[in-house]
């Protein structure tokens, strides 16, 4: 894919389909500045309701786990294939076997988790469907600061059934890396983000679509991020170009949840947690989060640097671990002579360790 840089100079042009010729650009550069100052271009304003109408069928409302103390049981997403693949953020909402999706037309469907990469906080769901209206990840454009954008999401869960997603307007303030704010924002994502000047990242908005004034997909709205130093909130979207490869991998069968039917043969002499020197927290829930309780001194885990309270995310990069049970199950496929790579979350840091067999 060769991402095309999209500028807003043509936003004032009535013909949105054609790119401006150089001669036209000269006048438009000055005009665009003035129109930006006004907040809206006259031509775009006329087309906006129509544009939004064409985008809404691509948006979905996602319902899953949560619903108690401050944890909303809903989030946003959008279709990325005619067959019902949905891009959204990876969150606790998806940590359930009952994920429901409402399409824009009100159709309620049960969704399965195709896969997720918590490192990018991205997940792909799938619903039954054919010929569904969707965003094409192959047509993604990059945007510069100053680009006028629309954010579509089901923030606050305002819409249900056939009610359409909420639409907000704003401007990309800057494209920057979240990494620079390590230790400030609580997120494992360290890549570039579009920072938006509108309050787009509200409860339930994560997984929403950021588009330009031509309806082209720019990014996916992230979670709510609070700056722990000054108690301000960041409104941002992750550029689709950062997610595209991972999404393709997920759809192609990588990063699959361990709970899905596994065609691999079990190892004759598999790894087990005891041999690795790992004691997990007591497995008391249907899905006990895979936290490490103890690490035996001198064990492969200890030598690799694993510590108590680490949360296991992946085994060998591709198998998404969602519970203590899943971790045990996953180890049963790996021969004890092979090294194991564990991806874990420690506090807000994402770390990788390789455990060498003995």
């Amino acid at each position, binding site marked *: 894919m060769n991402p095309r840089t999209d500028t807003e100079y043509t936003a004032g042009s009535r013909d949105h389909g054609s790119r401006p010729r*150089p*001669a036209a*650009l*000269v*006048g438009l*550069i*000055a*005009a665009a500045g*003035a*129109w930006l100052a*006004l*907040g*809206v271009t*006259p031509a775009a*304003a006329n087309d*906006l*309701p*129509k*544009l*939004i*109408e064409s985008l*809404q069928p691509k948006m979905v409302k996602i*319902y899953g786990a949560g*619903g*108690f103390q*401050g944890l*909303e*049981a*809903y989030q946003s997403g959008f279709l990325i294939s005619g067959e019902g693949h949905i891009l959204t953020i990876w969150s606790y909402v998806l940590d359930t076997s009952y994920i*429901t999706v*409402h399409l824009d037309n*009100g*159709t*309620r469907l049960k969704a399965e988790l195709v896969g997720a990469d918590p490192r990018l906080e991205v997940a792909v769901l799938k619903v039954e469907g054919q010929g569904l209206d969707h965003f094409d990840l192959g047509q993604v454009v990059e945007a510069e600061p100053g680009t006028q954008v629309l954010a579509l999401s089901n*923030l*606050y*869960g*305002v*819409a*249900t*059934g*056939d*009610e*359409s*997603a*909420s*639409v*907000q*307007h704003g401007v990309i303030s800057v494209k920057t890396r979240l990494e620079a704010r390590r230790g400030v924002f609580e997120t494992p994502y360290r890549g570039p983000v579009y920072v938006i000047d*509108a*309050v*787009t990242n*509200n*409860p*339930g908005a994560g997984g929403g679509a950021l588009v330009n004034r031509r309806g082209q997909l720019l990014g996916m709205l992230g979670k709510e991020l609070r700056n722990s130093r000054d108690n301000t*909130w960041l409104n941002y979207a992750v550029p689709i170009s950062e997610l595209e490869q991972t999404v393709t991998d997920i759809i192609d069968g990588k990063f699959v949840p361990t709970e899905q039917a596994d065609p691999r043969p079990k190892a004759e002499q598999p790894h087990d947690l005891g041999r690795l020197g790992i004691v997990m927290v007591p497995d008391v829930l249907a899905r006990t989060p895979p936290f490490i309780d103890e690490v035996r001194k001198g064990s492969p885990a200890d030598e690799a640097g694993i510590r108590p309270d680490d949360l296991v995310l992946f085994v060998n990069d591709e198998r998404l671990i969602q519970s203590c049970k899943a971790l045990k199950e996953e180890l049963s496929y790996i021969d004890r002579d092979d090294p194991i790579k564990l991806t874990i979350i420690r506090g807000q840091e994402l770390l990788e360790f390789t455990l060498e067999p003995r």
Partner: protein
Amino acid sequence: MMHPVALSLCMAALLTALLAPPAAAQVPDEVLKAEAQRIEMLKKAGAATVAIFGKGGQGGGSGVCISPDGYVLSNFHVTSASPHLKVGMTDGNLYDAVMVGLDPTGDVALIKLLGRDDFPHAPLGNSDEVRVGDGCYAIGNPFLLATDFQPTVTYGIVSGIHRYQYPAGTLLEYADCIQADAAINPGNSGGPLFNERGEVIGINGRGSFEKRGRVNVGVGYAISINQIKNFMGYLKSGRIVDHATVGAQVATSDDGRVLVTNILESSDAYRRGLRYGDEIESFGGRRIRTTNALKNVLGTFPKGWRVPLAFRHDGKLYETYVRLDGVHREGELAAMVAGSGRQQRNPRQQPRPGDDPNPRPMPRPEQPKDDDEDKDNEKELPPGHPPVNAAQQKLPEIVEKVYEAREGFANYYFNRINQERIWDKLISHGDFTGLQGAWTIKAEAAGGLESTFELSDALVVATLPGGKVEMPIDSKNPSLGTNLDPLGSGGLFASLHLWRRFLTGGINNFGNLYYLGTVPVPGQDELYDCLVGVYGGVECRLLFEPELGRLAVLEMFPAGNVDPCELHFLEYQEKDGRMVPARIEVRHGDAVFQVYKVNEITLSKAAE
């Protein structure tokens, strides 16, 4: 090698960049014109926007003037039930305003500016035409900044339409509202949401304020102006008005149909044939596909309206009109309103009435239902001062002249002047006061059969094709609801008696009578003025034609949960300088009982 034309273009671009002043020289005329129009529009819109201040300049919110005589819309949670408010306008003046009507459920208040008949005012738009993505402007008094009465303008787009926001308790339900991302902050409450043509499309009242503190998070809700238009006649009646229920519960089935899951047998919907399991097709003229859609439509109607309903029963489609009952019991709203002034003072310390201790079942997540309590800035009185009771305070003279306190009313004065308005208009077509003698009506029913009705204070005598029937009326202890003759009419004799009583006695001698507001009449586009009178144990509704002001319909309800007898005065003719009915249709339930062509009408004066 660069093409010469391209080169010169580059030079031009460079020159432009170097020489062009930041001024508007390069901006196309079209853009400048649009900008000038917008500035002009906002100037007008701003002039109609008002800052509302609480007692002693403490607390407040926003509002918008919608007529030259000073009617102002705001939120109930801004005005409470205060009889007197201080209102600032962009001309720099602080005007006195009087309470007119309250819709506590819909969070709407109507007040009236005093002292001029040429107030700057804003036109009302059509909120059904609003589309997601339309530009909009919230104008108002956020954070009570408008100490110089100059309002703040924030721009946004419409983020959602037909939104439903759960009530806080049984009040402040936002149905069918407009969601916008224009910054709406505490203090914006009650202020207008304008479209790009400068028409009011909503009244801003609510934001989603949660963990980020009480400031805008890009999600504001405005009560749609079309809902307020439905309520306008009710609000102008000076009453505390109620919202409506249809008497049935519905649920959305998996295949996307809205089915009745419960229905009150006492409801009009039940009498019109709606049963458990029936599918709602449309309501109030809008197609219904979800439970929320029904709640949305229902939330836009006042109690007592008759609204079209289409439903499917055993696969067959039925189209009818249902009378809507109230959400609240008699007196319940008035009691809530009376208590509201104090209740909202310290919202942070106590749970709001709407706080649901249990999480909502899926898939309806907890709603962002925080309404903004614009009274936050209200300061406590210094210690030792007795609390101020608004009702005990002396009203300024200009307010006192137009304020009458009465139980159940926001301001009875406005009810009284509407009764008088209707009466004056009515008697311009013929004054029947003084004609207290016997009235004789000779009428021809379908098939040419003659009937004669003789009406007097104590007796109705009807000579029907089947024989002569009498209905005596004990004027000391009238009980009209016990005799519903003739059979199948629902009480034609009693209705005729009430008709004569109203025309001869007028608004002051009928019994307990009040102005309800404006209501729809099946088959008519415009809304009709409605008086409600209670006499002889029955409730009587009198509907008057818009503009002309003639009596169009009389409905007599003998009891709470039964169909009325309806007299429709379809045609009028002149008789001795008065307009008298030429054709009267009698309806009961779903049937037309009889259509009478009036051949002769004799009205005699009271006996000496």
